[in-house]
């Protein structure tokens, strides 16, 4: 790569900062055994540092520069107005240990966000505390466990999870001490109801379900699934990772879910990954409300106060959770309103189906039906006919100026290629992407070596992912 690491710019004696003269009494030095002379920090000027990191930032593939079909799964576009709101001094300069009466504005925002998420989900008991989706899952499952214990139903040791689920679902259930049993999908990609029926019994605590599923499919049997799960005495947990598809259309609580988590950093556009922490609020039915993490925000006599759920599972995060994310998510909800949020899902679903309909002649579509906010193709045709793998297709997209979509997930689809355009992309942008995908399908036949060598237009070429995992080299050394 043309840009060396910052250590390679180092020149002995060069300094980036000048420390002011000492204006406090000199403290005794650290004991000798804690001191080292060989701290190899780069010696560079301020301008060296600025140029190095600006150049690196310009090498980034980011949603602010290119189309990014990873979608809400990774990060959809974050409107810039959110950053204005999050930087308001009144929000920025408060401390979580301040008395409630001195931070009424912040508590009001949390209260209103709880109310909004309760309305959107149809599940009115809300905790904003979990730090991300997987922690929200664990919170919800621990609440379910506590409810069963309270009822004396300690024999419920099993959690059912569909084969296509996010890996975090079985991991969550195992971490909460449950045994995980997979539920098969039927030919259409829905939950296999017969298989579900055969698994349900007095030992099942809950089923965890993503709706729409990770295949981008809305399971039309959801009410039947919920009825069966409830009839067996178990609860239905909802993974809200794909909420972007159903805002204002379907309330999970009305479908029969007892508790769900919502990824604010997915659906409600708060930055994550390198941009900030996540937030995974949990929305539950009234029956589960006593078990919510402590505290939640309530309203009493015109004042916003901390409430302590009587049978709380405890704290899952310090203080209130990631407050800065609440400000951004609330800004998103209020700037769009109910109609705007409904349109978000309508456009997200329309865009995914446009991509589906314009690529399904060239790429295998394992579940040939109307999809929701994402469409899952398989690269199996290219693999069989030309020896081209989905990885090669993804890498070639980079040469066309697009970030690759999610690949090899869900695991139940061979050579999976999951495209989630989201609601923000114009028809022109989608057409450009579709033309690139069509050109790549043609290249797979005429010039497969081009795909296997891709990307060729980037600062570094194809990275050896296997070697990186087998022998990771994580630290620069002279």
């Amino acid at each position, binding site marked *: 790569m043309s840009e060396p690491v910052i250590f390679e710019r180092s020149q002995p004696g060069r300094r980036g900062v000048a420390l002011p003269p000492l204006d406090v009494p000199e403290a005794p030095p650290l004991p000798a055994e804690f001191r080292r002379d060989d701290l190899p920090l780069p010696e560079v000027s301020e301008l060296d540092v600025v140029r190095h990191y600006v150049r690196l930032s310009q090498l980034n593939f980011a949603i602010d520069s290119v189309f990014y079909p990873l979608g809400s799964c990774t990060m959809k576009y974050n409107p810039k107005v959110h950053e204005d709101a999050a930087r308001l001094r009144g929000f920025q300069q408060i401390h979580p240990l301040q008395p409630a009466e001195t931070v009424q504005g912040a508590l009001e925002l949390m209260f209103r966000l709880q109310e909004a998420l309760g309305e959107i989900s149809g599940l009115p008991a809300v905790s904003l505390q979990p730090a991300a989706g997987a922690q929200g899952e664990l919170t919800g499952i621990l609440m379910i466990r506590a409810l069963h214990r309270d009822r004396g139903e300690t024999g419920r040791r099993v959690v059912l999870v569909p084969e296509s689920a996010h890996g975090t679902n079985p991991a969550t259930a195992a971490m909460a001490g449950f045994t995980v049993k997979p539920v098969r999908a039927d030919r259409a990609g829905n939950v296999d109801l017969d298989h579900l029926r055969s698994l349900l019994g007095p030992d099942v605590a809950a089923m965890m379900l993503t709706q729409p599923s990770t295949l981008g499919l809305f399971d039309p049997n959801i009410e039947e699934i919920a009825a069966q799960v409830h009839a067996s005495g178990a609860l239905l947990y909802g993974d809200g990772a794909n909420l972007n598809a159903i805002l204002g259309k379907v309330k999970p609580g009305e479908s029969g879910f007892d508790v769900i988590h919502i990824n604010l950093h997915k659906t409600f556009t708060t930055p994550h990954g390198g941009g900030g922490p996540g937030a995974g609020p949990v929305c539950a039915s009234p029956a589960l409300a006593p078990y919510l993490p402590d505290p939640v925000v309530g309203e009493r006599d015109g004042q916003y106060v901390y409430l302590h759920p009587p049978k709380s599972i405890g704290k899952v995060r310090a203080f209130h959770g990631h407050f800065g994310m609440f400000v951004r998510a609330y800004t998103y909800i209020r700037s769009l309103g109910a109609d705007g949020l409904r349109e978000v899902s309508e456009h997200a679903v329309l865009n995914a189906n446009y991509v589906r309909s314009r690529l399904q002649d060239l790429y295998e579509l394992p579940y040939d039906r109307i999809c929701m906010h994402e469409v899952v193709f398989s690269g199996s045709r290219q693999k069989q006919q030309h020896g081209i793998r989905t*990885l090669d297709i993804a890498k070639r997209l980079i040469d066309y100026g697009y970030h690759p979509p999610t690949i*090899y997930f869900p*695991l139940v689809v*061979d050579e999976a290629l999951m495209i989630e355009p989201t609601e923000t992309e114009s028809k022109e942008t989608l057409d450009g992407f579709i033309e690139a995908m069509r050109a790549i399908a043609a290249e797979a036949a005429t010039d497969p070596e081009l795909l296997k060598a891709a990307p060729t237009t980037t600062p570094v070429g194809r990275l050896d*992912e*296997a070697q990186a*995992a*087998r022998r990771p080299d994580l630290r620069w050394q002279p």
Partner: protein
Amino acid sequence: MNIPEELGYTKEHEWVRFNDDGTVTMGITEFATDQLGDVVYVDLPPVGTTVRQFEKFGEIESVKAVSELFSGISGEVVEVNEKLGDQPELVNSDPYGEGWMLRVRPSNPAERDNLLSAADYGALTA
């Protein structure tokens, strides 16, 4: 796809070779390695472990996913392919040879009848 005639197979894509000394050697099939992609880590049980037919004995991690490994036969592990610790890529390059995983002394040789033949396994993966 290479499916050697003399081996027994599981539905979970492991192969079993019956050695002259009464032990069996196990690994995963070429079809499995093709599905997994580049293998980066193989977690195998220590010598002396008891494994059971069609039950989990270890894990295999590729650049795509982590999968479970299932034993083709019940018995005691008498040898583990230590080379895979440093060279997991042997599973990809030579799945039926240098990429072997366990050598097991079977506790019930009749279990051999529960394995698939090369022809049946070929039909399963066609």
